[in-house]
């Protein structure tokens, strides 16, 4: 199992693992392969697009981006030793604190934002009324707005349960920050609409199915049969399509 799968399982939402397939393997084939290897069901993302260039010294290669998006480590994962986990742990710790170089008077605002209290963070910035506090306020608003937009896209992609969870966090966070609270209320109204009920059920069913099969033998005939039946039950939903896709992936001959 790649170390990155373990990292995603170990750190959960505190880290995002992105697998980038670099040998031009068709999407269906690498996805089926990842299921078969029991690498699915842990929150990691999969793509063939390279957000940064590889060093060219061969695969596998791992890069760690810090909380500011800068490249902290890059190379063969076997060469990192303890450095990989130490770097990630240090970044997670930093992610819960104010950014390096934050003026002392803004630490309280960042602390409130880190705890999910946007309104208190904004109030703290307004009290200070400096250029730095205005920049911090803009950053808080931008990050929160980006989360609202992401929640909307989650709904579009059928990830209703994740959207529910994010909307609940945002509702708590934006209480008292009028403009953003209004946007979150619109989001919550959309999530409560009857047309999303079937998708929500299908999403829960797919998550439950994934949890059950991901670490066993995903493509065993019994699991495929179950997926076929769930695809029929949730027909017409995006998650119904995910069940259909699972069935199709199970039929791919990976030895070809």
């Amino acid at each position, binding site marked *: 199992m*790649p170390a990155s799968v373990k*990292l995603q399982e170990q750190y959960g939402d505190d*880290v995002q693992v992105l697998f980038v397939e670099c040998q031009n393997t068709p999407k269906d084939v690498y996805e089926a392969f990842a299921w078969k290897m029991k690498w699915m069901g842990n929150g990691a993302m999969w793509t063939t697009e390279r957000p940064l260039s590889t060093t060219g010294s061969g695969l596998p290669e791992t890069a760690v981006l*810090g909380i500011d998006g800068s490249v902290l480590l890059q190379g063969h994962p076997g060469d990192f030793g303890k450095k990989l986990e130490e770097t990630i742990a240090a970044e997670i710790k930093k992610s819960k604190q104010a950014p390096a170089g934050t003026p002392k008077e803004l630490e309280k605002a960042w602390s409130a934002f880190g705890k999910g209290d946007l309104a208190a963070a904004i109030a703290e910035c307004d009290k200070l009324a400096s250029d730095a506090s205005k920049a911090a306020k803009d950053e808080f608003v931008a990050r929160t707005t980006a989360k609202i937009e992401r929640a909307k896209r989650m709904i579009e992609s059928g990830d209703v349960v994740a959207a529910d969870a994010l909307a609940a966090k945002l509702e708590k966070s934006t209480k008292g920050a009028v403009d953003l609270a209004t946007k979150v209320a619109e989001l919550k109204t959309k999530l409560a609409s009857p047309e999303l009920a079937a998708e929500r059920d299908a999403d829960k069913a797919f998550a439950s199915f994934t949890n059950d099969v991901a670490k066993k033998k995903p493509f065993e005939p019994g699991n495929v049969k179950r997926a076929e039946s769930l695809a029929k039950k949730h027909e017409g939903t995006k998650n119904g399509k995910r069940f259909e896709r699972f069935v199709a992936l199970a039929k791919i001959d990976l030895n070809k």
Partner: protein
Amino acid sequence: MKLPVLGLVAALTVVGATWLASSAAPAADSGILYTFRESPLHALGLKNLDELRGTPIVIDFWGKN
């Protein structure tokens, strides 16, 4: 004959530069910026790497073969 060849070279340069700009673009002072052309699998609505600002990212380059 040289003119068409020069034109082709210029066109390829523009295409190459555009491709590079849309694939991997290190930001001047704020880390890696990247917009996915196609949403990754299990992306949960993620479009830009920048949306993960504040969370460490582990990129695992691998090959099936």
